[in-house]
């Protein structure tokens, strides 16, 4: 069964410093991996995805993620954190269901807090 793990409940970073939010996955076959962000009292907002190709994926708001097949990881990164990046971040994998429009399996989330 497909699954993702986010080992950190919370990550604290000073504004201007680089940030990393960790994610590891377990899939059969080629993984379809995603990062979503959730601001307070809001739905999920798509940040980026890895389907195939370059291991470094660039997404919205200056975020990027590095796919590492040997370590089964898909860590989210940003070179310089902003206070406005403070939110809840979810790593997710798309299940190999009946079609390309298959269900998403989410990690437990990591709360990112950026201090001024």
């Amino acid at each position: 069964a497909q699954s993702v793990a986010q080992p950190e409940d919370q990550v604290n970073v000073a504004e201007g410093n680089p940030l990393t939010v960790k994610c590891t996955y377990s899939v059969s076959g080629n993984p379809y991996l995603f990062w979503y962000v959730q601001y307070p009292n809001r739905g999920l907002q798509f940040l980026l995805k890895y389907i195939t190709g370059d291991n470094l994926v660039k997404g919205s708001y200056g975020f990027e993620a590095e796919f590492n097949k040997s370590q089964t990881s898909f860590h989210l990164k940003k070179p310089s954190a902003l206070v406005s990046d403070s939110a809840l971040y979810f790593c997710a994998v798309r299940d190999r269901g009946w079609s390309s429009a298959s269900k998403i399996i989410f990690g437990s989330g990591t709360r990112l807090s950026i201090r001024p």
Partner: protein
Amino acid sequence: DAGVTQSPTHLIKTRGQQVTLRCSPKSGHDTVSWYQQALGQGPQFIFQYYEEEERQRGNFPDRFSGHQFPNYSSELNVNALLLGDSALYLCASSALDRSQETQYFGPGTRLLVL
């Protein structure tokens, strides 16, 4: 281009009641998925609709049912509400004909069961 919309935004019900939540997909999308997000947890897949049929279902009881209309909008119905059904219910839409589709989420409906 409107994104995914959901209604209502908030809802309060009592145990045993029934509730209906609504979702309109993003323009050009034909597939709707529903997720339940309990407080402090990641979203859990409930079911997915395409061509007005339930195509996949997560580990949820039959009290949870749905419907998709010809215009691709969808409803989630929950019968015999339990306190544990209190959660944020998220709708996501996608397009089946794109092999690398992304699911886009609405703002959610926050349900409180008393």
